[in-house]
């Protein structure tokens, strides 16, 4: 079933798809986000669903309040340390397949409130994130662009084979540890399974100040 034959058939009104394309097409065009706004980015998320930017064109305007019926969690706003256990528990309670869009600089890395004592420096310390949207707050068009990116990612998922997505793979975990409230900070401060710190070449001897080799 090469492309040329498929497009030939397509012109004559015969749609030839594989089961996987049909499955992915069905799922990517009805991603239901969880009704979960944290801060300023939530207002831009609401503005994206309103008449002018209209997220409904991409099948995502149904904001489900309960995690059981949602398959996308948009972390829109600053995740504080007091809110982190709730975010991770909500993520655990969502049904597979589930995706995470980390919207705004605060959800990616703490954003302007990075030095805050009560601010978690990015939600990808506890849960795997699929799409990052920089910006503070990112414009509604940026959120729609993230949806398109997410839809492209869902489209490329394979049904079988070694690199099939997490929800089709039995031994990949679908739950992550929920941090506890410690005396001074969250315990554990990050989830080592998810948060792999790339090698930071800071020479302890402090020869080159800028931290590069």
């Amino acid at each position, binding site marked *: 079933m090469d492309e040329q034959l498929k497009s030939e058939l397509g012109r004559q009104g015969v749609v030839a798809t594989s089961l996987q394309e049909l499955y992915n097409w069905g799922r990517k065009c009805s991603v239901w986000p969880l009704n979960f706004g944290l801060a300023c980015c939530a207002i831009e998320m609401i503005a994206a669903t309103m008449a002018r930017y209209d997220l409904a064109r991409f099948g995502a305007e149904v904001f489900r309040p309960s995690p059981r019926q949602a398959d996308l969690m948009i972390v829109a706003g600053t995740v504080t340390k007091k809110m982190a256990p709730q975010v991770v528990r909500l993520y655990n309670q969502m049904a597979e397949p589930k995706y995470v869009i980390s919207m705004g600089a605060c959800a990616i890395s703490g954003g302007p409130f990075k030095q805050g004592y009560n601010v978690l420096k990015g939600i990808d310390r506890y849960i795997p994130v699929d799409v990052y949207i920089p910006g503070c707050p990112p414009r509604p068009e940026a959120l729609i662009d993230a949806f398109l990116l997410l839809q492209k990612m869902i489209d490329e998922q394979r049904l079988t084979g070694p690199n099939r997505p997490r929800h089709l793979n039995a031994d990949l975990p679908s739950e992550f540890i929920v941090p506890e*409230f410690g005396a001074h900070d969250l315990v554990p401060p990050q989830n080592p399974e998810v948060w792999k710190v790339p090698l930071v070449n800071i020479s302890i001897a402090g020869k080159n100040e800028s931290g590069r080799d």
Partner: protein
Amino acid sequence: MNLEEIKSEIEANVPGCSLEIIPNGSPSGQHSLLVDPDHAFAVAGFLRDAANLRLDYCSNVTGVDWPAKEVSTKVKTKKVVDGVEQEVDEVLKTQSGGYLEAVYHLFSVEQRQGPVVLRMRTEDRADRVHLPSLTPVWRSADYQEREIFDLFGIIFDGHPDLRRLLMWEGFEDHPMRRDYVDPDDYEYEPTAHDEVLKRAKEHLSAEGGL
């Protein structure tokens, strides 16, 4: 009604309270009234119910942390130096601070009066940090005093429900104090520089180097 009249009026009506006017250096001219904690509750009740004051609207309650610090001020003193009378400026070391402070901004809705600033100070910053709560007088101080207790550690006696307002229950220290040490949550940055580089080094050396 400037501050002196208010001060004299309070001293007339609330026996035995010691008031002190703290001048304010900025051109805003909002001088404040320091009240001693024992009579603060009586003064607050009087300020709210006095006929000509009627300060019935407590708009803002703020906690301020003044750690103890050396203040060296240059003082011009006359000194006899080898028999000659001379102007010599001497460095005077005075201790200032070393207490926690609660500042109340009071307004009158009926008489449209400007801010009357009331200050209360604790004895020290370690264990004697008790202050009388003014929530029974002005209900608006309820959450703000809980926030000061949470972030500064001033314990308000007589507060109906003194719990932490913003941090979680098990949190132990008071983060808004000047000597609060941040938890060491490692900030990964590809090109770490100055402040973040220092923290990254402390973190990495604490973790046994790289």
